């Protein structure tokens, strides 16, 4: 088995308020948990031709094969569903303690389908010890119960004889009656920290929880998910996806010890992996000292820093929000996710009032991309995004898009690059979906098309590009164009070989010959996201070490090539979903600006991305056809024939019709 001890998959049907528990072994064997297992579930149960917010679409929270073990940086989990922003299959990944508690509750994954009759909290309790004293008894007669329990009866809270954790769906009106909509502190007004405080008071400290932020609860497509310990699952509007199911939070408590199959071997390999992290200057120095903000100066020096909605690729203001300045004038300490030695998260302030400081992507999106070089303003914007449940990348990029449209006279509003106060005001409006911010809260593509300026939306497949300008690192352009969830640096980040020299430095302006390393990174990234190990550990070690960790923890004979094969299966299954959802080769592209408008100055002056030859090479290297579809031979080699038949069935064979380019082209 992949988990070295029993781990249940809980399927909760919100329409029937009924739970069932499934042994996940067969799927976990193939997909390693986390993202891979979630993708397998969504592809099996979901409806690619239906609206992303259709109640039939599953939403998955999954721990990985290494979550909660002693493997470095492994305290993570994945959320997987269908993005209302992009229409693609989508996953997001975060640290904190939620994933560890999930596994300690004996749970591999929790799948919800349908839509609850009213707003609810889904509670999972897998503790073996009696939870006395850990909070008030939960719920009463109105609770929407799980399978095998008469409605209205007080449920057990301990696992049953088979170890199945207790599951209950509790209406918010009962659990948190103070959060009635429309009131000052109501469900549709309450911020992240206020919601966490309310849930903690009711549930007690043993529970970890994940919840959609305010923005998502108010239906904004940039709405993110957040954990009780302030880790964000930012991208793709998964906060809106969970909100559409009327889930205010998923809470989990667990106390079961975690075991690995071969403890002695696992201990040695973990020791080796930690030595690699300690010996690597990125993981032992740069990230612990500066966090990801260390990239601000490096990217600016390379001419790969997108500035003012990608109208430039380097900027004098970058120094004022660089990692060095962040460390010197803002950060008071560092913290790490559960079980992580890298400890890259910046802390600002002291004691209970301390908050997380901005990471690179937030510094870029709310700073460089909006032309704002005041660090305190950027920090406040980052804090607001966390409190309001907004993806900092897409929020900042959408404001930058509006700034550009306004600068060209196509928007009768005063929104200027560099106006930090206006950025903060717009973030508040976006979070509450009020005023002009309501127009921005669904992302740049919808906004720019609404003003007949689609070229001002810098996105791929509807997802705003993050803070790496492909004109200064063209392999990143191929990574954006081919990413299954839209423009993203986390599907595969070419900052390693193109900027940091990991494993070795490539010519960042060269187009030929990069598809192979990108594909390997895409597969390895899927492995990290599925085993639920932080990608930052990937700066120190790769597929060999991951295979050894997974082999020792699961007891299976796994090679580096075996786990990359799993990564390839995950990537191709995501691709099959997207094809079924109407995406085609023409969606594997970049914004026209990156293809045809070279930066006027700086190290990347005169460069654009010559994408088409790279795409051709990429498809060939993948064994795909000219339209970017996995060939039948590839599908069979990856043992995905059953999934392909289900996803790509012809309309007349299915119950519903596929519509080409359905989600985004309808925008």
């Amino acid at each position, binding site marked *: 088995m992949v988990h070295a001890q029993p781990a249940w998959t809980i399927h909760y049907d919100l329409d029937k308020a009924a739970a069932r528990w499934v042994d996940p072994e067969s799927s976990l064997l193939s997909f390693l948990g986390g993202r891979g297992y979630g993708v397998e579930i969504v592809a099996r149960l979901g409806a690619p031709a239906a609206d992303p917010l259709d109640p039939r679409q599953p939403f998955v929270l999954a721990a990985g094969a290494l979550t909660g073990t002693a493997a470095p940086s492994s305290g993570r989990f994945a959320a997987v569903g269908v993005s209302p922003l992009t229409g693609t299959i989508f996953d997001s990944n975060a640290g904190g303690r939620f994933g560890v508690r999930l596994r300690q509750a004996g749970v591999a994954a929790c799948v919800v389908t349908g839509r609850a009759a009213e707003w609810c909290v889904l509670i999972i309790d897998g503790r073996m010890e009696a939870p006395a004293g850990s909070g008030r008894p939960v719920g009463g007669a109105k609770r929407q119960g799980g399978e095998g329990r008469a409605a209205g009866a007080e449920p057990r809270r301990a696992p049953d004889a088979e170890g199945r954790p207790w599951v209950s769906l509790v209406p918010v009106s009962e659990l948190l009656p103070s959060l009635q909509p429309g009131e000052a502190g109501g469900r549709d007004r309450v911020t992240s920290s206020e919601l966490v405080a309310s849930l903690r008071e009711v549930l007690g400290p043993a529970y970890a929880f994940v919840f959609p932020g305010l923005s998502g609860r108010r239906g904004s497509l940039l709405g993110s998910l957040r954990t009780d310990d302030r880790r964000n699952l930012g991208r793709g509007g998964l906060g809106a996806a969970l909100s559409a199911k009327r889930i205010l939070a998923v809470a989990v408590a667990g106390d079961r010890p975690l075991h690995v199959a071969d403890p002695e071997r696992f201990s040695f390999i973990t020791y080796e992996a930690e030595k690699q992290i300690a010996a690597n200057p990125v993981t032992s120095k740069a990230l612990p000292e500066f966090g990801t903000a260390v990239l601000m100066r490096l990217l600016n020096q390379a001419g790969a820093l997108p500035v003012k909605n990608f109208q430039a690729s380097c900027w004098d203001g970058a120094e004022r929000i660089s990692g060095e300045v962040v460390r010197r004038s803002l950060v008071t300490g560092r913290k790490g996710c559960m079980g992580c030695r890298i400890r890259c998260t910046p802390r600002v302030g002291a004691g209970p009032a301390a908050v997380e400081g901005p990471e690179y992507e937030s510094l870029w999106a709310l700073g460089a991309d909006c032309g704002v070089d005041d660090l305190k303003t950027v920090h406040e914007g980052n804090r607001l995004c966390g409190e309001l449940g907004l993806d900092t990348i897409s929020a900042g990029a959408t404001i930058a898009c509006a700034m550009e449209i306004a600068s060209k006279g196509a928007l009768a509003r005063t929104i200027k690059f560099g106006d930090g106060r206006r950025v903060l005001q717009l973030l508040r409006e976006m979070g509450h979906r009020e005023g002009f911010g309501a127009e921005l809260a669904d992302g740049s593509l919808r906004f720019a098309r609404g003003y007949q300026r689609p070229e001002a939306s810098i996105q791929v497949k509807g997802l705003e590009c993050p803070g790496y300008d492909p004109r200064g690192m063209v392999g990143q352009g191929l990574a954006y164009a081919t990413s299954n969830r839209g423009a993203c640096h986390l599907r595969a980040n070419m900052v390693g070989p193109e900027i940091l020299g990991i494993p070795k430095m490539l010519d960042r302006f060269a187009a030929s010959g990069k598809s192979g390393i990108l594909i390997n990174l895409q597969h390895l990234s899927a492995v990290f996201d599925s085993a639920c190990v932080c990608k930052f550990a990937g700066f120190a070690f790769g597929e060999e070490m991951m295979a050894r960790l997974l082999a020792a923890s699961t007891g299976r004979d796994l090679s580096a090539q075996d786990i990359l094969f799993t990564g390839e299966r995950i990537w191709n299954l995501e691709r099959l979903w997207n094809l079924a959802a109407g995406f085609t080769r023409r969606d594997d592209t970049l914004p026209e600006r990156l293809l045809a408008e070279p930066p006027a100055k700086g190290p990347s002056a005169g460069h654009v991305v010559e994408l088409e030859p790279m795409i051709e090479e990429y498809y060939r*290297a993948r064994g795909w056809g000219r339209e970017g579809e996995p060939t039948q031979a590839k599908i069979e080699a990856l043992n995905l024939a059953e999934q392909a038949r289900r996803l790509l069935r012809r309309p007349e064979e299915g119950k519903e019709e596929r519509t080409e380019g359905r989600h985004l082209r309808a925008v």
Partner: protein
Amino acid sequence: MSGLVSSHAGNMSVRIGDRLVITRRGSMMGRLRPDDLIETGIYEDDSGIALASSEIITHRAVYAHTSAQAIVHTHPPHAVVLSLVEDAVIPIDSEGSYLLHKVPVVVAEKTIGSEEMAQVLSKALQTHKACLLRGHGLFCTGNMLEEAFQWSSAVESSARIVYLTHRAGIVPREYRLKSEGYGEW
């Protein structure tokens, strides 16, 4: 490639999509010219096969069965000596321990340009980035050529330290915790 091959020995290649570029048969690693780089298919022959290195069968097998993007093949003398007596080279120096962990030795009866060696090497390189063919030489993979070259150089460096230690009759004092794990796992 100094110290890793004789004047006209060794070869290397990179993968580009479903094609590969490999050094010409009999070319000098130290003085490669543009026409020493031969492009041909990974899965299908074309006229380039007439010029390609005699080890192309192994390069193709490795590309077909692994995610390697580059391959470097050399004949490093200390590593080859150890391959004659050991089933694996286990570095005892610090850098080798970090970078390589363990380098397996595989065996084939026909050790040049054979299907047999292609099979055993491509299998071993699914779990290790460097592998020795007994009595012949070293094959290393990487995401790029420079990376594969680094492993080649590192293997010979570590092998030389192991060889010198054995040759001098030295019993090294262990400085690593859990040192038995390097050989076992």
